[in-house]
């Protein structure tokens, strides 16, 4: 255990002028780059890493944490203001954020995203700082069989997102899983459905699919509508009512249960490597909608929808550091980038990190808390700027967004091949929306698919194909029972919404 004076010294380090400056710089960069369509928070970190080569460890890692946290706040901006989420987790935010922004309340929508994001983030940071060690031990006990059960539970909750046709929802999910099966199979590493393109060997790149389906397909649709009709991309405000541009304390407080639920879901999923923020955001959204007294108001600008999504996806990021710092296991791409930053500075996260580098770890914790304050402050200023930017005519917003998506996807994947894949999925996404198939269900299935298949393969290998061994795991059995319960509950809620 780290002694108290080391903790204090670590927190003190985080408050030094140099470190605060790097946190501020990181947050500003993260919010800015994260908000640019097509780039997003992960890309922001990958770009930032080489700049940390020359820094001392604490400023370097504080800077990256700043970029990561800033990027999360920034990532909600294109989702809310333009309905073009750059990452799949922000797609959940767009479901209510964009309708609210379209009603002439873009500042209210983005501020709600900012406040709930920081609330969820702070919650998981506190969990990380206080109880990371016991949580990490629990995460270890989640073997492949339990992970399969957990993912079945996640899929069952997604039933809450299926609209009026169950068959169409199932098609979206199966199509997403089919797309996820492109690339090497999880057990024998054979190239599968790659049609001779070795760029596909590691599977379709997530940025290509997510940005193509969620952002480009929406931009194409809006371009076709904009023909000869020059409007601002968003209207900053319709009325002079100041409440349209801010979130009142009463509104924030009314979302406390929603945000707490989101933060808990995000923290649990974040502590378990490989599930990720997308599932957390949508699970939180679906549970909030189903437990609401007025589920029909979701998707039409309900602030609870924004709060549910943002609190959950931001909580994942802090919680991702639980397995990372204690076990050296990255829970997400962003966490993997932080590990490489540790490695560049000669440290390997793992069981001895707290002992050997206690002061640095507590310096990092201090930096995370400071980054949350800075995020709130910079966000208040930055959001006004973004609302102004997006008030420019649609012609320039969409042409620039397309160019940025080209560049961003090309940098995040392997060049123009990734851009071509992006365009293919933009067309698929456009057609699916036109014919009434859910894109978010496709994306979630695509995102969870590889992990799901791998965990099934691992479970089969461990049990020699004898699936009755599942009964020996109480956690798995409990999750499977919960899956059935939630499936019934969500399908009944859907029916209730339809009846209204």
């Amino acid at each position: 255990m780290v002694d108290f004076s080391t903790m204090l010294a670590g927190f003190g380090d985080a408050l030094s002028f140099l470190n605060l400056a790097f946190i501020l710089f990181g947050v500003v960069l993260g919010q800015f780059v994260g908000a640019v369509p097509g780039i997003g928070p992960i890309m922001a970190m990958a770009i930032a890493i080489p700049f940390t080569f020359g820094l001392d460890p604490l400023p370097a890692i504080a800077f990256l944490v700043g970029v990561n946290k800033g990027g999360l706040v920034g990532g909600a901006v294109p989702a809310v203001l333009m309905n073009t989420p750059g990452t799949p987790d922000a797609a959940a935010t767009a479901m209510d954020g964009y309708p609210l922004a379209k009603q002439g309340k873009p500042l209210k929508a983005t501020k709600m995203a900012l406040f709930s994001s920081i609330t969820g983030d702070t919650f998981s940071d506190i969990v990380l700082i206080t109880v990371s060690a016991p949580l990490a031990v629990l995460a270890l006990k989640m073997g492949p069989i339990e992970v399969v059960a957990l993912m079945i539970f996640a899929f069952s909750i997604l039933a809450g997102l299926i609209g009026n046709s169950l068959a169409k929802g199932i098609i979206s999910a199966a199509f997403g899983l089919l797309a996820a099966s492109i690339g090497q199979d999880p057990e024998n590493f054979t190239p599968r459905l790659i049609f001779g393109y070795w760029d596909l060997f590691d599977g379709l790149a997530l940025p290509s699919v997510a940005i193509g389906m969620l952002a480009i397909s929406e931009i194409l649709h809006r371009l076709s509508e904009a023909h000869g009709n020059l409007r601002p991309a968003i209207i900053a405000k319709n009325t002079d009512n100041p409440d349209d541009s801010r979130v009142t304390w009463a509104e924030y407080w009314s979302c406390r249960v929603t945000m707490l639920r989101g933060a808990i879901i995000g923290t649990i999923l974040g502590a378990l490597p490989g599930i990720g923020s997308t599932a957390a955001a949508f699970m939180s959204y679906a549970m909030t909608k189903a437990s609401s007294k007025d589920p029909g108001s979701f998707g039409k600008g309900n602030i609870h929808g924004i709060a549910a999504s943002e609190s959950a996806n931001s909580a994942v990021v802090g919680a991702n550091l639980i397995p990372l710092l204690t076990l050296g296991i990255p829970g997400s791409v962003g966490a993997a980038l932080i590990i490489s930053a540790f490695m560049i500075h000669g440290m390997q996260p793992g069981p001895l990190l707290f002992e050997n580098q206690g002061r640095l770890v507590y310096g990092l914790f201090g930096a995370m808390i400071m980054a949350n304050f800075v995020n709130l402050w910079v966000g208040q200023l930055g959001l006004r700027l973004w609302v102004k930017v997006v008030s420019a005519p649609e012609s320039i917003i969409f042409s620039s967004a397309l160019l940025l998506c080209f560049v961003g996807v090309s940098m995040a994947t392997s060049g123009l091949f990734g851009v071509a894949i992006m365009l293919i999925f933009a067309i698929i996404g456009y057609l699916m929306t036109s014919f009434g198939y859910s894109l978010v269900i496709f994306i979630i299935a695509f995102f969870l698919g590889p992990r799901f298949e791998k965990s099934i393969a691992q479970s089969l290998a461990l049990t020699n194909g004898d699936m009755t061994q599942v009964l020996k795991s109480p956690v798995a059995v409990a999750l499977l029972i919960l899956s059935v319960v939630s499936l019934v509950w969500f399908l009944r809620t859907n029916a209730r919404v339809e009846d209204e």
Partner: protein
Amino acid sequence: MKLSKNLVALAASAVMALTAPSFAEDWAPDGPLTIEIGFGAGGSTDTMGRVLAEVMKENTGWNIVVENKPGGGGVAMFTGLSQRPADGKTIGMGVSIPVLVQLVQRGDQLPFNVDSFDYLGTIAKAELALVASKDAPFDDLEGMIAYAKEKGTLPVATMAPPQVLMMKQTKATTGAEFNLVTADGGAEVMKLILGGQVMAGFGSGEQFPYLESGDMKVIASANQSRLSYAPEAKTFIESGVNAYVDPVFFLAMKAGTDAEALKAISAAIDEATKAPAFAEIVQNAVKGAPINMGPEGAKQMMVDGLANAKILFAK
């Protein structure tokens, strides 16, 4: 951006070297020189490649751009490289084993072979270890095989095809049964061992913190020779299983590149692999010193590696 003391010192020495006629080669790239890394951003290959580029840039003053071209353990990147003109502008960086495995198993589907490239040098060797929890009732591979026979079967975590084949070879030689669980990278192997879901697994560096803390022990070296950090652990070959893998990080260009360019670039790489800043990164990434076998050595490594891979991986 701010540079570290090491890089500043390097920059200073590079400036001095440039003014001295001995260092400066006549050849310089016409426009930016691109290093394509066959893996995604953030891994150890990416980190080493980016630092190598940084040091080369400081040494030579060339404009060097680093790009990630992930896919198939480098196969996608080398496929692309083999289709380019040999204009001396693009360098590929990859790891030998994944490329050799695909060449042996699916050579007919690939547009390149070992001769499609001019080799520039190597930068490091990865050490691959079979590790187990400290509580495991065996201490070496022979003990593990005996324990597997006693229990009927034993769960082992792997993360890539060569390791699966090594375990299958172990089974073929000794008759012991293993449940082979494929994990998503070394970190997940460690998680499976710590969580008690498997008894042993392969690690290419992810196990170091656990060796240091005493939570894990080395069972065997999967390389041709013993591990530098655990010289007491026997190799698979010494334990009676005739199989090994020696992954080497190497750099290459399209075959037919101008000889002057090859000479200048491989000299720059050699210079960079000797820099302390680079050695530090390699030490952090693979727990070993940089190894540059030079252009001929790199080519020989690939040719020999292919012959060995044919024995181990042929279908």
